[in-house]
């Protein structure tokens, strides 16, 4: 996961550095991405120092072990004053503790996998993108099916539940649209909205219910 993340971040022209425990894997990374990897345990202060953690704006712990992700982030934060620490969470139960211990952003691997699976399933019209920390709200995407009642109608006519807010609409042709009451909805458009766990079903029904 860390490797693919680094690749994506490099594409967006960030300075990226990787700490990898396995020398075999780090050799692969070095061959493909250049000398931006060291072999070592990211839970050790000395290794983090050598990696230049004190200069980092963001520290991301993306191992498969929550205890290692926690310790690496805590050391980055308290020893190297990294302003933003992000941890992958493999066990969803740990999220609350990690937030309480000062990890700035927790990304649950279960949620990621779930949203990928949801994306792959055409029948599943609602995708969970992320939970908003410190609230019970979440960001979801809803794809409008061809047989939905809202197809061809303007957003102002759609009964959006009170606890939901439409953020933007990604049209089927890839253009982005700011949602106002005059926006016309079409089949295959993706509506990205902020809603609550209780409200998501009503929102889904409002946007995807058959005519």
């Amino acid at each position: 996961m860390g490797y693919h993340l680094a690749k994506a971040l490099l594409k967006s022209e960030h300075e990226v550095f990787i700490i990898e425990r396995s020398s075999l894997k780090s050799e692969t990374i070095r061959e493909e991405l250049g000398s931006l990897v060291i072999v070592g345990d990211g839970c050790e202060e000395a290794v983090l120092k050598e990696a230049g953690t004190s200069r980092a704006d963001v520290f991301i712990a993306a191992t498969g072990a929550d205890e290692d992700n926690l310790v690496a982030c805590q050391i980055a934060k308290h020893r190297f004053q990294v302003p933003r620490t992000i941890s992958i969470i493999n066990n969803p139960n740990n999220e609350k503790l990690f937030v309480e211990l000062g990890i700035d952003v927790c990304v649950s691997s279960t949620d990621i996998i779930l949203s990928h699976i949801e994306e792959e399933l055409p029948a599943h019209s609602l995708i969970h993108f992320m939970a908003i920390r410190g609230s019970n709200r979440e960001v979801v995407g809803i794809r409008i099916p061809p047989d939905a009642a809202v197809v061809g109608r303007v957003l102002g006519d759609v009964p959006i539940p009170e606890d939901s807010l439409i953020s933007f609409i990604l049209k089927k042709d890839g253009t982005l649209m700011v949602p106002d009451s005059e926006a016309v909805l079409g089949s295959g458009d993706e509506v990205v909205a902020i809603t609550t766990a209780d409200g998501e079903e009503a929102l889904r029904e409002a946007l995807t219910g058959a005519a």
Partner: protein
Amino acid sequence: MPVEKILVPVHDNGCDDEALRLAGEIARVNKATVHALYVIEVKRDLPLDAEIAQETSKAEKVLHHLEQLGKELKCSVEATLLQARDVGPAVVQEAVERGSELIVMQMPYKKRFGSFTLGDTIPYILKNAPCQVILCRDAMTPDIKNGSTHA
């Protein structure tokens, strides 16, 4: 194969003069030019373009000395100073960019953990340089010849 551009990575390890003399000999025969390259390795806790005054002045001194030596040897020496995270890739990249046909390196007889070592940079260059590479290892110092493991 005719050689027009020779790259000499230098590193203030006591071998620079020898490397330049060797490169100078080859350059004279081939009427080639010599590029002396000093790479300052920048640790990760500094930005790549950080100004490291001490290292820079040391490197400039080394390069200046080599330019003078070039004059004595009657060959033209162009000096370049670079900053990089790792020396090996920086040397290889420089050779590619300049289209060097030959890299000449000289190394001391070094030991690590009690046995002979090439270090990390030289094997990298030998493995990855697109052009010919000449590596000259220094003679053993007397204490190494006498079998000391602490050399």
